[in-house]
């Protein structure tokens, strides 16, 4: 059992800057929770408060039901992996991993067993006698993870562990962290600014901005039902298209009217609007680039001009301008287009785009809250 509970946790720095506001979160045993948000949103500060590396100004942090506010990091039953690995440069990989065990006066034969075990799991056995400077970034990160693994801690904290790696290695290590999680079967709290990492790793994602929690939910929840405009734009790449438009109610039917088009709101979304008895009003309409399609007939079509075409391999990212100059992004799978269609996608090309009613998200222009939440 290792649950973590944060109640009204607040961080106020000496210069009165509030980095984290009333942070409430219940992390269950063996859950993988990801804190994600842009720089300065307070995610690392929160993690460091859980670790005991940062004082908690107000509120309580409980690990396994015990309030740990005044405990030293070493007494909290946590292990931590740092962004810059924080390996001890003067020690060999073996000594780095064994450091915490030796401090606990664990017998040397047990140290040997645990270090070699961890090294085997992480595939770094052959580097055990090397110094950290003789390792590549990925190997160093493995050592850092190994150092955290041998502690048999209740909670595993990771502070942007993949940020210093190149893109290819990052993908590989991400998969390895998923495997590691299955092997360790413990509670993980992971901090990142990369929404892809958050989506792929987390059981639940905590999206933060300016020290506030914007939404807590599973990857599917935050992707399909963002509670506010910030989450909608932050999760998903390329980011969601936001269109200033009107929601029009005609009897029991709803329409949106972007750029002079008129597109019906269908499926679940339409039903929910009706349930909430939403009246006609100005809204911010959100549509993800992957939910926009080329073409569209009659009233549903929005006339655009292609500005930039990014060929991503499996798909095209088309940056298009509408008649009033609003920039939209459309994701088109490469296989959806034949050769002629692909070669026609050049700057200046006129084309129509549209989207389906079920793909829409509606936000209040003032509060920026999702109308359906």
């Amino acid at each position, binding site marked *: 059992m290792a649950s973590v509970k944060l109640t009204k946790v607040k961080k106020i720095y000496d210069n009165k800057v509030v980095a984290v506001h009333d942070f409430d979160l219940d992390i269950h045993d063996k859950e993988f929770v990801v804190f994600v948000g842009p720089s300065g949103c307070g995610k690392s500060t929160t993690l460091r408060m859980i*670790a*005991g590396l940062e004082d908690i100004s107000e509120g309580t942090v409980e690990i396994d039901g015990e309030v740990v506010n005044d405990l030293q990091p070493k007494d909290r039953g946590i292990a931590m992996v*740092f*962004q810059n690995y*924080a390996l*001890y440069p003067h020690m060999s990989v073996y000594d780095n991993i064994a450091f*915490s065990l030796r*401090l606990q006066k664990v017998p040397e034969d047990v140290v040997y067993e645990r270090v070699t075990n961890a090294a085997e799991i992480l595939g770094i056995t052959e580097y055990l006698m090397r110094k950290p400077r003789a390792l590549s970034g990925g190997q160093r990160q493995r050592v850092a993870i190994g150092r955290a693994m041998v*502690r048999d801690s209740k909670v595993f904290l990771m502070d942007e562990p993949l940020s210093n790696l190149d893109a290819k290695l990052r993908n590989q290590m991400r998969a390895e962290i998923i495997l590691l999680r299955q092997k360790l079967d413990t509670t993980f709290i992971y901090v990142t600014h990369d929404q892809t990492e958050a989506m792929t790793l987390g059981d639940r994602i905590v999206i933060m901005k300016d020290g506030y929690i914007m939404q807590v939910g599973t990857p599917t929840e935050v992707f399909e039902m963002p509670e506010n405009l910030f989450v909608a734009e932050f999760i998903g790449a390329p980011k969601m298209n936001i269109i200033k438009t009107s929601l029009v109610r005609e009897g029991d039917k709803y329409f949106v009217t972007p750029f002079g088009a008129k597109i019906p709101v269908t499926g679940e979304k339409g039903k929910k609007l009706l349930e909430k008895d939403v009246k006609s009003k100005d809204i911010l309409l959100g549509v993800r680039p992957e939910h926009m399609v080329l073409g569209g007939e009659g009233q549903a079509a929005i006339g655009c001009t292609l500005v930039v075409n990014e060929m991503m391999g499996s798909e095209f990212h088309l940056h298009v301008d509408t008649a009033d100059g609003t920039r939209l992004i459309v994701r088109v799978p490469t296989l959806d287009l034949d050769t002629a269609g692909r070669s026609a996608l050049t700057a200046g090309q006129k084309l129509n785009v549209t989207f389906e009613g079920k793909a829409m998200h509606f936000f209040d222009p003032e509060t920026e809250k999702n109308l359906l939440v």
Partner: protein
Amino acid sequence: MNNKHHMGLRTLNRVSNTAIYILLIIISVVWLIPFIFIVLQSFRVESTYQVGYVIPHQWGWQNYINLWNSDFKRWYLNTFIIALAAAVLVTVIQLCMSYTLSRFRFKLRGPLMRFMLILGMFPGMLTMIILYRVLSDLGLTQANAVPGLILVSVASSGMGYYVSKGFFDTIPKSLDEAARVDGATRAQVLYKIILPLSKPIVIYTILTAFMGPWGDYVFARYVAMGTSAGYNVAVGMYSWLTNDQIARMYTTFCAGGVIVAVPVTILFLCLQKYYVEGVTGGAVKG
């Protein structure tokens, strides 16, 4: 054309390097002359007074034997004890101070650092009279000058934190944090992580702490107040240079000079690699 240009550059480099080396050799020779002179004089046995030539006419160990039979042993031991004690205590205090100022954030940290900076600008000599009073009241003058001088060397050592703090500042804080999460106390972080990574600066601190009292004259003379048992080498040997002694003791004085230089020279030869790293590392990185 390109090749010609390349050749010109190489010649220019060679010429400037040669000039630099010649200049450095001249400077080294000039610097070495007094040392060579004193070594030669220490082996001169035909007379004990100052002479008009450099190379001895008769060579021998007599001056060193005289040294052994004089109070020099006592002075040497005094100096060694003071310098060694100062080296150990000053290093411990200064490194703890530097680590504290580098890693901890506490109220008045900034004002304290500025205060010490300003205090350090006053010449130490200004405090001499009051220090003598304090030491005298404590009974640490004259024959008891050794503990008194250790106290004087160690008392303000925390103020010399600049270079080592600058060095500690370059060691990432996340190493401290990782070690603390791993279960280390603050003290363990210092001696298991920070100090092994700061070898150059530790050695630099030890050397400078040792050198201060080793070559001290003014304070040592003042505190010993004419009592030979409390002299260090500098004060004791200077007493041989008085008008009535110099003719008898001059060559012995030179032998003493050589013996005084030996431990320091050995220390520097062994540790010069770290010393240079310490001097430049602390300054540049800090």
